[in-house]
């Protein structure tokens, strides 16, 4: 893959949800190229299709029409296992609800994708390095996620998203459940991570949060405007 090839490419992608009282067009003929190392904010009113866009890029949802390429691979040609492995190795997810695994400790949460990938439970100090990188105290590692504050949980989620060294981070309102001060800290962290070469696509309602991105995309009724 050459460096000027887009890391993500949407080619006339539509997503239509068939519903009994009429189809809902969540994405309407969206085309988008994302360069490696980009930091893109996706904005738009509620119901405009922001999450749908992120889910499609995240290979959690398949487009009804059009093609999606991630690192040059047409995901329409991949099996469910291949898509799953792509999410594990190439994509990192950061959610508004943090979405940590309640049964696992902080350490286990962070190393979970690595264990999935390598089938081994040894990280050679990687977990410690990541917790330091995301500004988390090491004493928290043996705790359960429920014992952490929202800001701490989001840092754990970011550490988990980074553990397999993915090329792309997908963030759906990463600061949506955090106070302004904690949100700023998280955004500084994401900016730092982007500076280290990760491509970030972030959905947000908040224009001040969108300012951290290099580029902002506005969605209205499933269309980029």
């Amino acid at each position: 893959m050459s460096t000027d090839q887009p890391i993500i490419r949407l080619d006339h992608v539509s997503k239509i949800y068939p519903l009994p009282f009429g189809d809902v067009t969540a994405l309407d003929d969206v085309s988008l190229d994302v360069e490696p190392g980009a930091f893109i904010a996706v904005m738009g009113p509620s119901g405009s299709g922001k999450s749908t866009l992120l889910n499609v890029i995240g290979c959690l949802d398949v487009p009804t029409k059009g093609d999606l390429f991630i690192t040059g691979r047409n995901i329409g040609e991949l099996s469910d296992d291949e898509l799953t492995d792509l999410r594990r190795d190439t994509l990192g997810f950061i959610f508004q609800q943090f979405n940590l695994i309640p049964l696992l400790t902080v350490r286990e949460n962070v190393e979970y994708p690595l264990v999935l990938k390598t089938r081994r439970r040894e990280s050679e100090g990687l977990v410690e390095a990541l917790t330091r990188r995301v500004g988390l105290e090491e004493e928290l590692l043996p705790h359960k996620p429920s014992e952490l504050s929202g800001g701490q949980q989001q840092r754990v989620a970011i550490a988990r998203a980074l553990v397999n060294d993915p090329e792309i981070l997908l963030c759906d309102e990463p600061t949506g459940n955090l106070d302004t001060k904690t949100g700023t800290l998280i955004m500084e962290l994401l900016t730092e991570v982007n500076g280290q070469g990760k491509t970030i696509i972030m959905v947000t309602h908040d224009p001040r949060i969108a300012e951290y991105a290099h580029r902002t995309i506005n969605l209205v009724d499933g269309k980029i405007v």
Partner: protein
Amino acid sequence: MIFFEFAKRSIRLHWLRSLLAVLGIVIGVMAISSMGILGNSLVLSVGEALSDVGDTVVVYPHAGGFGNGPPVQTDTVITGRQVQQIERAVGVNDVIPLHVSADRIEVGGEMGVVQVYGMDTADIPLLLEVTQGVYLRGASGALVGQMLAETYDLGVGSRITVGDQSLRVAGILTERGVGFDINPDRAVIVSDQWYRSVYGEADYDQVIVKVRNLEEIEEVKHDIDAALNRRETEVDIFDTRMILETILETFSTISTFTTAIGGISLVVAGVSIFNVQMMSVTERTREVGIIRSIGTRRREVMKMFLYEAFLLGFIGSAIGGILSFGGGYLALLVMLQDTTFLFAPSSLVYIPYGMLFGIGTSLISGVYPAWKAANLNPIEALRYE
């Protein structure tokens, strides 16, 4: 194994309902194992008691209208002429006519009642085995059964009084167990000359035919029947193998039936595992959404839930297996009053058998919930509250 860890923690987190599901498996496994042990012990104890080799046809004088089992006591007899007819009918096979009666026995002042068999001394080795001493040679002397010998502390050369005749013990018989032809273990065997001279009776009470070729047993029975019962029923003919088989078959059926009843309790346990697993899947829908979205394959989700079902089944089966020793012991004590067959390999095999069923039931019950979890739509699962 991260998925095994998930399963363990999920069970620990919901320990109460897990415990109840495990209890179901424990009871199911115990029911199957204990019933299996009981049934098997039943068959074994019957089989041991009925030591007959099964090559024997027994002919009794016809008992009259009632019952169709071997008569306990009758006034009717088999005459010498009938014995000759039987001999002609069965050809090369050995025919052993017997006198049977009961009499008083006295040994050194100790009194009792004993079964007395009178038979041709040449026939004795065909039917009985001597463990000490020798077979009867002349008309006098007696062979005694092992248990009778123990009761009266008899050895070769001891003197016993039967009725009011004194007899010298020539040999002691090998223990034989309960049979359908004769029961010599607590009996005295004398020559037919002695028997006739003492009891004054020439007719026989029973005729045993030893069949050389087992396949011919039906034929032999048929031939005797044709020879003696043509005009009117003079004799009743039994073959010991048939009796033995019927009894063993009956007990096997009972045993299968009781084990199957144990199986029903396992089905109930399976339903409870199914319930617990469905609950677990529903509660953890969001968690499944999370792990699917960050790169967990369907098979891995499936594994995670199957491990959970397996663990419940394994714990239940392990506990149930251990308790089955107690359960089996109790069942034997109550039903058979005899626990000697608990540790027979063919009894013990019901414990791993029951455990296997326990684990199998749990796994089968866990398949659908696990499949359901694995095939959840990740986005919808993530949205689930």
